[in-house]
């Protein structure tokens, strides 16, 4: 089975290149037979990559440690769940996984367009197969073959890094990869629009749902990663501005910009070149992120590039994609002219444009900070690094402006808005925002950025609420409906807009949670059984923890030491909390499993930093119970996860096909086919 998987990977290589060539040649010469062959090759490559993935999973499940990859990421005791997820636990497997996801999306895309949008498809197939072919080349020729054998059979594998043995870590990479790979489809359509010469808005309409899908996965992937860091890394933070994290944020920023500028092109026929460039940039950043997270370039430059060959192949690929796309855009410049001009600074398109510029500015700043050590080494010979203070300093002001725009955008009219109307629409939300900020200042909050964030968040939430209320009322009046049906129809008739507002609510909650970090409380203390430690929450109450004692136990895969504490809130007992230290002998590694007590407003977060005498605890020595704990109160941290859920709901509303499209009429007459279906398609 595993050998067959390796073989399938080898056949996939020529098939993908066949598909690429036949797609381009068939499209160029108008040969339907070649195009059919190319389209079939997409489904075949998908099937072959599934066989390859199953081969790897099979090797994990049957403990075939003669494979380098399995030996490094598994051992006999590993849970079946983690054996299956071994497919994407390491660099080699995750490249296969990346390829299989791209092949899946390509296959779905070809299937959905088997009768529609035919003039795009030959080139779309050619481009997608080209990208796939590239990844297969990397897998087979860049020393990252997951099927590489050691030449001997080790008695057991090295086991999976205990930090990766966490639910969030299992789900975080696949979701992120879904986001990265889904964006290849908009890129392929954009380039095929340029190649085929059909440069009107059609490609934008065809790809906006793919873009939203990709954005949805990227957002969730990033949030899952934060959740993992918060639970597993054991210091109470969720974002480090680590190169790997930054790499996943970059395409998210540019994809967010693209989602907004799509609307300008649709509605006003402007920003065509800009949109092409954004698609290209986002696609390159998804490749860059895959490359950065899985090649170790930034981490290892300081020593020696561990695997220079993969770096060279990736850079060559990104370089040639960039050059080819820019040449194509320049070649088509004459047909990419804007149909309209921006009429006023006070218009929704101007607000969107500003949003785009700011998002790109943020992306540039993050990229700059991430590769700054490389740049400075190039110029001065010494690496100079910038840390989290840099990223916070640049991105907090940028984030605040974006937050403000989130509120301004929905209210300001297309084309041009008049000051009088703006005053009328903004008066109440601005007052609410100011009142919230003033109230928080009154009760003792003193952090400037946090106060601005809370004020702006309330401003935006008020605007969105008023928008929903006014929209419902207007619909109820115009259509003569009851309030609830009017509300539901309002959303279902323009899912993208109202789904988008719901996404904004989620984003606002997440921003609020970030600002909450300004009020975190932490302290460390040494405890003997019976000792108490008190910590005051910024919300006014306090917690008292009483240390009950620590005990040890042996599990299949690790040894654990569990410290138990009882928790009182304002003197009332509210339960108990355990915080844990684990030792994995097979990896010679330890992890700290933090104890968390979550409420709507804050998390009580307890880390077992150290125990005086681990052997003494195992031996039940009563004098060896002394531990050091770090106790934190993390205000509003949960709002990131709640915000993520709301964002997901909003994105799903936007993604859901409009009812009219789902039951598209099959009648042939041209007049009939533009019944409600037409409106549905535009608002979808």
């Amino acid at each position: 089975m595993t050998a067959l998987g390796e073989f399938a990977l080898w056949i996939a290589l020529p098939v993908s290149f066949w598909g690429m060539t036949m797609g381009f040649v068939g499209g160029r010469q108008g040969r339907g037979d070649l195009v059919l062959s190319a389209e079939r090759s997409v489904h075949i490559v998908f099937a072959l990559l599934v066989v390859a993935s199953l081969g790897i999973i099979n090797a994990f499940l049957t403990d075939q440690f003669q494979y380098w990859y399995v030996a490094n990421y598994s051992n006999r005791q590993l849970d079946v769940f983690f054996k299956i997820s071994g497919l994407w636990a390491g660099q080699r497997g995750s490249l296969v996984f990346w390829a299989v996801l791209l092949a899946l999306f390509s296959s779905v895309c070809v299937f959905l367009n088997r009768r529609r949008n035919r003039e795009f498809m030959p080139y779309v197939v050619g481009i997608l197969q080209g990208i796939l072919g590239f990844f297969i080349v990397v897998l087979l020729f860049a020393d990252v073959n997951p099927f590489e054998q050691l030449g001997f059979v080790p008695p057991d594998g090295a086991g999976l890094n205990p930090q990766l043995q966490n639910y969030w870590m299992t789900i975080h990479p696949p979701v992120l990869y879904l986001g990265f790979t889904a964006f290849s489809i908009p890129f392929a359509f954009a380039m095929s629009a340029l190649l085929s010469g059909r440069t009107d808005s059609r490609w934008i309409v065809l790809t906006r749902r793919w873009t939203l899908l990709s954005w949805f996965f990227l957002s969730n992937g990033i949030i899952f990663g934060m959740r993992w860091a918060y639970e597993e890394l054991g210091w109470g933070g969720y974002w480090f501005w680590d190169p790997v994290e930054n790499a996943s944020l970059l395409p998210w920023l540019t994809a967010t910009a693209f989602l907004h500028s799509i609307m300008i092109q649709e509605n006003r026929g402007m920003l065509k070149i800009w949109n092409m460039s954004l698609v290209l940039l986002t696609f390159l950043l998804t490749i860059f992120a895959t490359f950065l997270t899985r090649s170790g370039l930034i981490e290892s430059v300081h020593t020696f590039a561990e695997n220079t060959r993969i770096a060279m192949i990736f850079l060559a690929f990104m370089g040639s994609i960039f050059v080819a796309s820019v040449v194509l855009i320049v070649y088509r410049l004459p047909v990419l002219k804007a149909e309209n001009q921006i009429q006023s600074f006070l218009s929704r398109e101007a607000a969107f444009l500003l949003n785009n510029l700011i998002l790109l500015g943020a992306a540039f700043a993050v990229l700059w900070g991430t590769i700054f050590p490389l740049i400075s080494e190039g110029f001065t010979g010494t690496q100079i690094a910038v840390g989290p203070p840099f990223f916070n300093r640049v991105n907090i002001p940028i984030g605040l402006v974006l937050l403000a725009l989130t509120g301004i955008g929905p209210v300001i009219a297309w084309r041009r808005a008049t000051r009088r109307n703006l005053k009328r629409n903004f008066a109440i939300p601005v007052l609410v925002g100011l009142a919230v900020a003033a109230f928080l200042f009154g009760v003792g909050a003193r952090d400037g950025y946090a106060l601005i964030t809370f004020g702006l968040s309330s401003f935006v939430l008020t605007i969105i609420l008023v928008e929903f209320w006014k929209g419902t009322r207007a619909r109820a009046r115009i259509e003569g409906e009851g309030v609830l049906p009017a509300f539901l129809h309002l959303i279902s008739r323009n899912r993208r807009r109202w789904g988008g507002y719901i996404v904004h609510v989620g984003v606002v909650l997440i921003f609020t949670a970030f600002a909450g970090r300004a009020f975190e409380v932490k302290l460390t203390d040494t405890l003997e059984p019976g000792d108490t430690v008190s910590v005051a929450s910024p919300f006014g109450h306090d917690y008292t923890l009483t240390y009950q004692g620590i005990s040890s136990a042996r599990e299949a895969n690790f040894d654990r030491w569990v410290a138990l504490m009882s928790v009182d809130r304002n003197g009332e007992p509210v339960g108990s909390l355990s915080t844990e230290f684990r030792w994995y002998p097979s990896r010679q590694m330890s992890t700290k499993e933090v104890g968390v007590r979550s409420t709507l407003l804050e998390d009580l977060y307890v880390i077992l930093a150290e125990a005086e005498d681990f052997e003494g605890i195992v031996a039940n020595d009563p004098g060896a119970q002394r531990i050091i704990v770090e106790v934190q109160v993390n205000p509003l941290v949960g709002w990131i996860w709640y915000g993520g859920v709301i964002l997901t709901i909003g994105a799903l509303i936007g993604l859901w096909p409009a009812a009219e499209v789902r039951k598209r009429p099959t009648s042939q007459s041209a007049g009939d086919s533009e019944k409600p279906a037409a409106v549905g398609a535009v608002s979808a």
Partner: protein
Amino acid sequence: MKNGRFYVGLVGVGLVVAYLVWTGVSDSMVYYLTPTELVAKVAEDPAFHSVGVKVSGRVVSGTYSRGERELEHRFEVHDLEHAEVAFPATYEGVLPDTFTDEIEVVLEGQFGEDGVFRAHTLLTKCGSRYEASPEELMGSEVSA
């Protein structure tokens, strides 16, 4: 209205971002050195002892010990390529889970006159690559 005014806006936003990046970089940049480079810099210019730097190196096996104070850790760090270049380091705080012998660490702090590096932050190189050498695999025991 001409689109010209929007180019002005575009340039304006660009300038603001550039300003933020520029001041951000000059306020938070630190030298990022290998132990070898750090030792050389200090020999060249003793004033470098008081400059905050970032150093990436590897924890020397068997050198870890607890300091006298609560949560104080002592260990030695050597260069990734030139293992003979090494110096002691201290760090106060909760150690990351990945901290073990021979782990690659990034320390930020000052290299004191007494030759001890006092780190105020400690990061371990974590993430995507956790791999064992063939020798380690050969020696691994079946513990089931």
